[in-house]
């Protein structure tokens, strides 16, 4: 078992599934010879050849539509958008076709496509490379939105996404790509979609988060635990369909919840989670559900980038205020 990074885990999962299932093909810009700008598809061209590992012309809408056509025809394409910020031209294809084809043909046709993209800020890239607009996609009926936060979950959830018969948007937090290593067993075992992962059990407060913010949330937990507060940390992982059962069960136990996400506050998935907690767990709440999120601004350029996302002290403060509420 090797200790590998998140981006290496993506590569490993792709290699496993392409070996196991000849209908899996990958396409995108710079993914073949170059192995992907983040090396997420490194080595796959050599292993599986140019028919199944395709560099596309520079056209995102085309990547979307092409993959959809391939999927409807019976392949299992995993198409990459180089960054989430460049996925937007393909929204027509994703929303109007991928999300809809099963429904509108009453199941005669379906679209087992995976669209992968690095997302989120924190890598000091030029503008447009730091998008965290997963809420746009989570809003669309018929889509799945999956966000891994560790090498193990990247491996297992990508396998599950490829095997799922419906379209999945798989967003990889770019600032976690090389951040930490983890032992990942290359055994082809998928992790379940549509389920939250409780990373730490606790009885005082529930922290709900996903993507790269797991890092800050864990750091905040380490600080707050020293003050005697027992935190429970939930990695949502599949933003849509949302596993509210796990979140509600946790909030019933702790009575307190802070949701942390990098994406802008308004219309973020945190709002949906908060609303559902109010609807279904009001009687257990000892404090209002707080959301600690990115601002409703454009992500600043690299120099100010780090000030945009919630900081560890900010999260710690939210936890304390929630604990002190009543």
């Amino acid at each position: 078992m090797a200790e590998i990074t998140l981006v290496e885990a993506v590569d490993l999962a792709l290699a496993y599934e392409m070996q196991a299932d000849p209908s899996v093909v990958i396409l995108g810009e710079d993914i073949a010879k170059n192995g992907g700008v983040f090396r997420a598809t490194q080595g796959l061209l050599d292993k599986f050849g140019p028919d199944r590992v395709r560099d596309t012309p520079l056209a995102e809408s085309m990547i979307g539509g092409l993959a959809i056509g391939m999927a409807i025809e019976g392949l299992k394409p995993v198409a990459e958008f180089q960054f989430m910020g460049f996925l937007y031209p393909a929204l027509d294809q994703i929303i109007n076709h991928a999300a809809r084809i099963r429904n509108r043909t009453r199941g005669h046709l379906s679209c087992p496509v995976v669209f992968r993209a690095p997302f989120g800020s924190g890598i000091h890239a030029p503008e447009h490379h730091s998008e965290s607009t997963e809420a746009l996609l989570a809003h669309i009926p018929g889509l799945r939105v999956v966000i891994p936060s560790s090498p193990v979950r990247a491996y297992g959830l990508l396998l599950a996404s490829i095997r799922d018969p419906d379209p999945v948007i798989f967003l990889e937090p770019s600032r976690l790509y090389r951040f930490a290593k983890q032992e990942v067993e290359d055994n082809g075992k998928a992790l379940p979609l549509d389920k939250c992962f409780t990373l730490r059990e606790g009885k005082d407060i529930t922290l709900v988060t996903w993507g790269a913010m797991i890092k800050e949330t864990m750091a905040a937990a380490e600080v707050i635990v020293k003050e005697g507060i027992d935190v429970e940390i939930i990695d949502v992982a599949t933003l849509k369909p949302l596993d509210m059962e796990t979140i509600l069960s946790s909030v019933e136990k702790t009575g307190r919840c802070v949701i942390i996400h990098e994406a802008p506050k308004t219309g973020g998935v945190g709002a949906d989670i908060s609303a559902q907690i109010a609807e279904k767990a009001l009687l257990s709440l000892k404090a209002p559900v707080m959301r600690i999120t990115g601002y409703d601004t454009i992500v600043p350029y690299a120099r100010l980038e780090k000030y945009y996302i919630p900081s560890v002290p900010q999260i710690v403060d939210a936890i304390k205020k929630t604990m002190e509420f009543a």
Partner: protein
Amino acid sequence: MPGLKIVAHFEIPYYQILNEAQELVADLPSFAKDPAHLIRLYRLMVLNRLFDAKAIALQRTGKLGTYPSTLGQEAAFVGMGDALSKNDVIVPYYRDVGILIQRGVKLSEILLYWGGDERGNAFANKENFPYSVPVGSQPLHAAGVATAFKIRKEKRAVLTVCGDGGTSEGDFYEAMNVAGVWKLPVVFAVCNNQWAISVPRSEQTAAQTLAQKAIAAGFSGEQVDGNDVIAVRDRVTLALEKAREKSEPTLIEIICYRQNDHTTADDAKRYEKAKVREQEWEKEPIARLRRYLESIKAWSEKEEKELQVTSEAEIEKSVAEYLATPLAPLENMFDYLYATLPESLEEQRELLKQWGNTHG
């Protein structure tokens, strides 16, 4: 003084076999030498036209939703449909009745779709893609299908159709571009009926022909007289063969005229000059083929009358079938969203069952 160096040329041929005066201006392809085959095409065009009129009538009497007429364009679609092989894939836009009825789609299904029921585009024949309303987005799907054929080393082709308006969409070019560079077995057919709702062809692009857009993508384009079903059928067949055999794409611009409003919700009188439609009607395809068939003694008034009767009967049957189709179960809204309904949606599905029938 050295001359200007020209690095590229292009040529766009125009094909016609049976002209406006139903004269043969080129050699008949072998299929057209068989009157029975031509009669089959004729019957389909007549059925298409009568069905079209019926659909409009249904819409005007509140029994059908918005419907896009195919009047005057029958040869384009019937010709294309006849050229397709069984295991070719068709990726249509939304006027392609003439193609779909040759591939197992029932008239009642077509009515069901425009009547507002998803079952109307749940085609049993999986080689038929459903209609595509986002204009120009479907050629990319065709390119995807063709890629799959190539990867699986299958000798099959894809035909995709869009209107003249669709050729301005970025997706249209992106599809052609990848088809050219990846050598995909796709035939891009453009049904140029001269109008994109109210925007005439001349305002759609400065390109002299739509066919030449293929040149920019690195493959050949051609124009065909869309009122000449023989030429359409011939050219599309050849292009599909080229796709299957050589894995090369082609763009075929089928030139015809939209003899009706864009859809039943449109009023072309607001933008179309009065006389043009009548002038274009002189070239219409059904009369042209009928006169030719009559000239080779393959068709008569008697057969014409019979055809009208049987076509009407077939159409009536399909209308009755359509009108008798009850509403789909409300839960269908949920049941085809994913392969398996996620747990998180079960609550809403129950809500629909509880409240769905309270809308009066």
